[in-house]
C-alpha cells in the first residue's frame, strides 16, 4: 500500500519508496539528512497545528513540512 506524506500517522514505521516530483534543491537537502530511497523512518509526532511532522531517520530527529514533502511516497515497513 502506497502512502502519501499527509497520510502518515504518529507511531508509523514507513519506508521511503519514491521522491516523486520534488524540487532538486529540496531533494539535495533531504539527502544530506539521510533520506535515501528505501530508508526506514519512524513518524514521531505532528506539531500542535498538524504541521510540520517530526520524524526519526538514521537516528536523526528531523522536522519537515507536509506540503513540501507531499510528493514523497511511503509504504509500511
Amino acid at each position, binding site marked *: 500500500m502506497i502512502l502519501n506524506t499527509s497520510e502518515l500517522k504518529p507511531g508509523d514505521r514507513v519506508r521511503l519508496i519514491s521522491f516523486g516530483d520534488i*524540487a532538486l534543491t529540496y531533494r539535495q537537502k533531504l539527502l544530506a539528512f*539521510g533520506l535515501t530511497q528505501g530508508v526506514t523512518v519512524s513518524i514521531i509526532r505532528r*506539531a*500542535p497545528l498538524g504541521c*510540520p511532522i*517530526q520524524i526519526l531517520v538514521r537516528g536523526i*530527529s*528531523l*522536522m*519537515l513540512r507536509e506540503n513540501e514533502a507531499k510528493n514523497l511516497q511511503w509504504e509500511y515497513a
Partner: protein
Amino acid sequence: MRRLLLLGSPNCGKTTLFNKLTGNKERVGNWPGVTVESKTKCIKIENLPYELTDLPGIYTLASDTENTSQDQSLTLDILQQANIENTTILNIIDSSQLERDLYLTLQLCALGFPMIVVLNKKDCAEKQKIVINKGELSKALGCPVIELEYLKQALLKQEIPHVFLEDLWDTAHALTVQVQQQQPLKNVVITETLDKLFLNRLLGLPIFFLMMYTLFFLAIHVGGSLQPMFERFSTLVFVEGFAATLRAISMPEILINALAYGVGRGVSVIMTFVPVIAILFFCLSLLESSGYMTRAAFVIDRVMRFLGLPGKSFVPMIIGFGCNVPGVMAARTLESRRDQFLTILMTPFMSCSARLTIYAVFVAAFFPHSGENIIFSLYLLGILMAVFTGFLLKSFASQETISPLLLELPAYQRPSVFQLLKETYSRLHGFILRSGRMIVIVCAILSILNAFSILSWLAQSITPLFSPMGITQNNWLAVVGLMTGMLAKEVVIGTLSSLDPHFMSHFDGPIGAYAYLLFILLYIPCVSTMAVIKQETSRRLMWFSIGWSLLLAYSVAVVFYQLATFDQHILQSSTWLVIILLMNALTIYSIKLNIRRHQGDWVSAALCGGQKSCVTACGGCQVTRGNFQ
C-alpha cells in the same frame, strides 16, 4: 538558460575545451594553473543557448582558507553559489590520470548536480596503452561518461540525470554498524521526555507563548526598568559632564552644543539600549543553545507560514513590540538571507514601547473612553502593514517563496553560562561599534540644526506637506516632534511639551490626533533601528525601509483624515485620494521593475548598490550576453 561549469583538476584541458566550444583564444598551456580566473561566455549549440564558465582547476572540494590558493577558492565559491536547478557540471577527466581525477569526480557526485564526465587527453592515454571502459564507469557513477568529441551530442541528446550519491549513506551505515556500540543514553531519554511536554499537542502552544512572554518580559520590562538608570548615568557623564568639562576649558558654545549635546547625546542613546539588548541576547542564546529554539519553530511554523515566513521569525517580531532594534538583530538567527531580510523589513511595523508612550498621552487627551480600542487598532494596523509588505515582495519575487523547512531537532543541552556571556558580549559589542557610529552622527547633525533654530525653520517650511493629514500651519510643532522622533520615538512627547505645554489644542480634534498617531506608528524607524538595519543588511535596504515606511505612513494618515472629513470638502478629499493612489501605484511599480531587473531576486536587488559584486550575484554573464557564437 542552462549554465555549464567546466570543472576538473588543473591542466586536464578545461580551457582547451572552452576555446573549442566558444571559439575564444584564451591562453592555454601545459602546466597547472594557467587559468586563474573564471571566464563566462554564452554559446549556442544547435540554437539552444548555454552559458559556459571556465574555472581554475581544483584537485578536491576540501578547502581550508589558509592553504587554498585564491584561484581555487574562486572555483569553490562559484560551485557553492551555483543553482542546482539550472546548472550542469562538465567534469573533465585526464584519461591518463584516471584515479587522481576520479577522486574529485566522486566528490562532485555527492553535490547532486546533473553531470557529464568528459574523458580528455585521449592521446596521452593511448600512448600509455590505457583503455577506459566508459559504460562500466557510467554505471558506477550514475552519469554519462563520454569522450570530448561527443560532448555536444551528449548535451542535446537527453536530459542529463542529477547524480545523487545515495551509496555514501549505505557506506556510512555499514561502517557505523561495524564500529559502533551504543548503550542507552540518559540524554536521549531526557530529550524524549522534554519533547513530550514542549511539543505536546495541547500544551505545546501555551508553553511556547509562555516562553515568548518570559523573553519579552525579561528583555523589555527588566531590561527596560534598568534603562532609566543607564540613561541618567550616561547623560550625567557623556552629556552634562562632558559639557561642563568643555565649558571649563572655555570652548565656544557652538562646539559644546555639537560635541556634548550631539555626540554625547548619541553615546548616551546607545547606552540606554545596552541593558535591553544584553538581556535579550542572553535569553536568545539560552534558547538556542539549550535546543528549545528549534522546538519553538516546530510549534509555530504553521502560523508563520501564512506570512510567508518560517516559524523562527516569530521571535524577532515579538521582540519588535518591545523595541525594534533588538528585534532586527534577532532576525540573525534565521537560516536564509531572504527570511532574515523579510523579517527585518517587517519588524519596524511592530509598534514598539516607545511609540506606546506617545499613544498613551494622546489617547488620554482625545479618547478618554475608548483608549484601549484606539491603541489596539494601531497595533493591529502595524501588523497589517508588515503583512502587506511581505506579500508585496513575495508576489514580485520569481523564486520559490519560502525556503523549505528541514531542521534537525537536536538533543537538549545544558548551556554553559560562560559561553552564553561570551556570545552576548560579542553581539553587544557589534551593536555598539557598528550601529553606534551612525547614531552618534545623526544626533550630532540634529543638535547642530537645533542650535541654529534650523530645525523649527525646517519644520515650519515643510508643514504644508502635512496639511492633507490635518496638520495646519499653526501646528508646526507637531512636525518638529516628528523630526526629533527620528532620533528616538520616546522624545516626541518631550519635545512637544517642552516647546508648548498646550500642544494638544493645535490638533484637529480626535480625527486629527488619530491621523497623527497613524503617522507616528508607521513613519520611518528611529535612527537606532535604521543603523541596525544597515548593519544587518545593506545601505540600500535601509533606504528602502525608510522610504517605504514614510510612504505608507503618509498614505494611511492622509487617507484616514480625508475619508473621515470627506463630507466637509468632497472635491479636495477626492483629489488627495487619487494622488495617494497614484503615488503608491508608481512606487509599487518601480519596486516591481527593480526586482525584475534582478531576475525576481529581491534579496540580491537589496544587496546590489551598483557595486561590482552585483554582476556575479545577479547578472552572471550580462557582459557577454547577446554575444552568441
